[in-house]
């Protein structure tokens, strides 16, 4: 089989905003009125090795719908597909390092054989100073199935809590807080993907 060498990665740099975060490229809100599932807001800060906010990062998310189905041809499962829910989000960070999304809590997606994964959202981070993007996952702290999630179990015990979003409430909205620490104390567990 052919194996072509891959194109290398380079930093997104400081000036991507007008292109990648313009009005029709940014996607803070993933839901449509008809989207089923528990409405949640995800928010957090991106922090550097000095604990300082990163004001020029971009965070992308990818998730299944509330039934546990990805809107993608490679997902041939039987869970209900909702065509109007893409499951992709893209947010910039503000001066205080904050990003946010309004979405729904995803359902469980298959792992292997009869196993399922705990509900999770794939998270990708880009910024000046990142020669490659960072890849991680957001899990929900109040989710019983975390204890048996095959990916979470690969993360060393002492780092697992960095992947758990904290549930809160604000003005009737469920808010999950998920800070992303690029370096140093409390460094988020990133994946080799």
């Amino acid at each position, binding site marked *: 089989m052919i194996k072509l060498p891959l194109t290398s990665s380079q930093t997104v740099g400081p000036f991507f905003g007008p292109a990648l975060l313009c009005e029709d490229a940014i996607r803070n809100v993933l839901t449509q009125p008809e989207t089923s599932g528990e409405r949640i807001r995800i928010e957090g800060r991106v922090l550097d090795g000095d604990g300082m906010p990163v004001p020029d990062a971009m965070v992308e998310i990818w998730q299944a719908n509330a039934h546990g189905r990805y809107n993608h041809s490679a997902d041939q499962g039987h869970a209900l597909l909702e065509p109007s829910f893409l499951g992709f989000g893209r947010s910039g960070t503000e001066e205080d390092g904050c990003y946010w999304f309004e979405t729904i809590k995803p359902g469980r997606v298959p792992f*292997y054989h009869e196993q399922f994964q705990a509900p999770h959202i794939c998270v990708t981070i880009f910024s000046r100073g990142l020669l490659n993007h960072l890849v991680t996952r957001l899990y929900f702290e109040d989710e019983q199935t975390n204890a048996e999630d095959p*990916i979470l179990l690969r993360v060393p015990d002492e780092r697992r809590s960095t992947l758990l979003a904290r549930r809160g409430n604000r003005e009737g909205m469920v808010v999950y807080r998920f800070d992303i620490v690029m370096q140093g104390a409390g460094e988020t567990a990133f994946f080799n993907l």
Partner: protein
Amino acid sequence: MRNITIGEIVRGDREVFPPYLYEAYQSTRRRAPMLPLIEVPLTLSELTGPGPAISDITPEDADLTRNAGTGGEAIGQRIIVTGRVLDDGGNPVPNTLLEIWQANAAGRYLHKRDQWPGPLDPNFLGMGRCLTNDEGIYRFLTIRPGAYPWKNHPNAWRPSHIHFSVFGQSMLSRLVTQMYFPDDPLHALDPIMNAVPTEAARKRLIALYDHDVTEPEWALGYRWDIVVRGANATPFESKEGEQ
């Protein structure tokens, strides 16, 4: 490029991808993760992705010489940048979104944080996008970007480059990178480009001048192919399921 610390932590192939920490590029020092990346099996979450689903694009988006919508044309050497997006199995990646951004012909970005005294061009936004066709081919019409000064080290200049964002078919194929132009003396001096670990991998970031792409009395042609990771890996490999 001497006496620099290069970090151990690399995502993916060490012959291809830069380390997160590359001290000559100063911004990596406080943004590079220092703990080992977690090795995880591929699941449906990684073998799917938003690539094929974003398609809200018009043909005008791929013409950076006119997409400022002013009625005027951007100043600079008009160029065509075209090529194919392929996966590492050699298969074309059709119908996937490419987003690009670049400095103008004078090396200035239209961005509030770029304040060096290069002139702005009112007819140039420096951003474009397109979808690959059924054969994985993309094509942009733009102007050749100028070199750009930055504050990384004394008298630092970035070589002319165009930023590319590519989705591909899954989370594995997501790529943000930069395309460079041939025969640029600034390549050897650029820490961002030189963070790429091998000569062969750096060379793959440089477009080729292609006279067959050049259009007479109109624009110079450059060809640059992009190879992203395919989703041909088998999910849920048995060794992962037997633990």
